[in-house]
């Protein structure tokens, strides 16, 4: 493999890893802070992609900015959606066992998939990226690289930084981290923990929906698209350490590299490499790379 091809492959790995991070960060927030195993997280990703598909024509007609208009509306809708979902279902799960959480959120997957089938149907759809991002740049004579993929990576980095800043530098972030460690103590200090949890869940849902929307032009929109993402996201969360944003970022990139170079060098076992990585890391550090205190 010559150096130019190697560098392009590294770019592929980073770019895939960053998108994974966007989905997994929401999952690790909900899992780590609320203690809820949320199997429906993949469905939120799927809902995001379908929102981008459904809203883009409407936004283009009424707001003049098709894709970004859809992105903005979708983001608002997803926060409301997450907030309501927490109030209606998830808030009953905090004191329950993991098995009941799994049952409830698995049920949500089935409901969302059926609703999707009824409302939009089972066809595959494409979403067009905004015109100014639809070109591509030549990379060292190897191949051309779509500008939209680079844009996606930029957005993911921006969100990673923003998340990190909110959690470590703001009062809300502090309350969230404290709430994860000791729910009762934070409550007795006068923080409305129910509202806090509702916000965290809404933010987690919004992250997944946003990831689905921003990935839609690249991944297309099709039934069952959330399930694949869900499994890899859980791997990322487990490798990174449950609840750790830093861990999720590092783990996403690690998975991106292992997946990309695994496909190139050892395609025979590429399907299990990511899980092998997870097993090895768990042997070495059972709590994952970064453990939340």
């Amino acid at each position, binding site marked *: 493999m010559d150096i130019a091809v190697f560098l392009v492959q590294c770019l592929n790995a980073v770019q895939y890893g960053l998108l994974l991070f966007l989905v997994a960060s929401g999952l690790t927030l909900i899992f780590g802070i609320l203690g809820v195993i949320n199997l429906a997280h993949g469905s939120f990703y799927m809902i995001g992609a379908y929102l981008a598909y459904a809203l883009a024509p409407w936004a283009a007609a009424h707001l003049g900015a098709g894709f970004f208009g859809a992105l903005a509306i979708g983001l608002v809708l997803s926060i409301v959606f997450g907030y309501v979902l927490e109030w209606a279902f998830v808030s009953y799960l905090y004191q329950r066992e993991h098995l009941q959480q799994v049952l409830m959120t698995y049920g949500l997957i089935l409901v969302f998939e059926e609703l999707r089938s009824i409302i939009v149907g089972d066809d595959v759809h494409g979403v067009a990226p905004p015109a100014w991002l639809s070109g591509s740049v030549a990379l060292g004579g190897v191949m051309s690289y779509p500008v939209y*993929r680079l844009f996606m990576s930029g957005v993911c980095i921006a969100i990673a930084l923003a998340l990190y800043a909110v959690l470590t530098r703001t009062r809300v972030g502090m309350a969230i981290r404290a709430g994860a460690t000791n729910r009762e103590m934070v409550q007795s200090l006068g923080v409305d923990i129910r509202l806090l949890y509702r916000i965290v869940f809404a933010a987690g849902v919004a992250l997944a929906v946003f990831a689905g929307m921003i990935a839609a032009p690249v991944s297309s929109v099709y039934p069952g698209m959330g399930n694949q993402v869900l499994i890899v996201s859980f791997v990322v969360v487990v490798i990174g350490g449950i609840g750790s944003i830093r861990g999720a970022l590092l783990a996403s990139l690690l998975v991106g590299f292992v997946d*990309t170079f695994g496909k190139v060098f050892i395609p025979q076992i590429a399907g299990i490499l990511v899980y092998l990585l997870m097993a090895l890391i768990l042997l070495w550090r059972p709590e994952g790379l970064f453990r939340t205190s």
Partner: protein
Amino acid sequence: MIFHRAMLVRAVLAAALCTGAGGVAAQGKIKVGFMLPYTGTYAALGTAIENGFRLYVQEQGGKLGGRELEYFKVDDESEPSKAVDNINKLIKRDNVDVVVGTVHSGVVMAMAKVAKDTNTLLIVPNAGAGAVTGPMCAPNIFRSSFSNWQPGYAMGKVAGERGAKKVATITWKYAAGDESVEGFKEGLKASGGDVVKELTLPFPNVEFQALLTEIAATKPDAVYAFFAGGGAVKFVKDYAAAGLNKTIPLYGPGFLTDGTLEAQGAAAQGMLTTLHYADGLDVPKDKAFRADYNKAYKTTPDVYAVQGYDAAQMLGAGLAAVNGDVGKRTQLVAAIETAHIDSPRGAFTLSKAHNPVQDIYLRKVVGTENRYEGVAVKALADPAKGCGM
């Protein structure tokens, strides 16, 4: 309490009478069991197959071989682990005379095994797994669609004739992909080319970027890809986005573009694929079929509807020969084996292993159609490796 018990007894008696009466009434009807995907990724395909089947039966006045049909349905969910249970529901619970199914190759393998063990008549209306008309072949198992090998071989032949010497292949690492690539390789070698790089990724992974970079570095004369559904859309778009379609032509079996052209948009324009069906065929039967289907279901039929329609034709040919007496299995099977099926895809016959011997067409993507370009290979028969019949 006593009142309730009396009610219960009455209800049970009534139910028993009903089923008894139902049993008598149903004796006159032939029981057809659809085992198809009605939910999930392949739901649209399952519906199209059933629609096609019912359309032919309606055209015959609702009767095949002089007997009316009664339908039983099971949703196979494209789930191989449930396949044995599902087909047993039709065979053991509903006592069907014939099973029609299914789309997914993994599910069909389990179905073929059960059909073989219980000697149930099975007509496969889509799944192209080579084994069904290969090592697993049996007198009671038929296929109205294709084998994965067939479109692959035809595309290989065309690619070689168009001057491709060094070709890279890419597919998911699973049976259907392997069989398709195998067919392609044989066709390509027969017309003077060779496969220089075989790329695979785990099913149903859709992160193609790493392998597209490999293709760009290899610089082959052409690429052959086997994907379906969402994966196919993403691959064709990623291939175009990487700029590869400008220098390296992308070939594939028809599944790469069928039913998903609206989503693939500009990325697929001009692409060549091979399949046993196409838009704009000059076949009178096809024009009539399309018009009738459109009238009945308010939508344009696809290749899956054709395969369902032909499954009914094959069953009809068999039943006509025995006047609807499904007990005369040997004559029924012999009649299907020798039948000329007047399919919308063009007439076909069946091979010794019960797979269609059919023309494979070369098609070109124009707008949202897979437009007929010519015949890639005439009357192509699957080699039926491992079949003892």
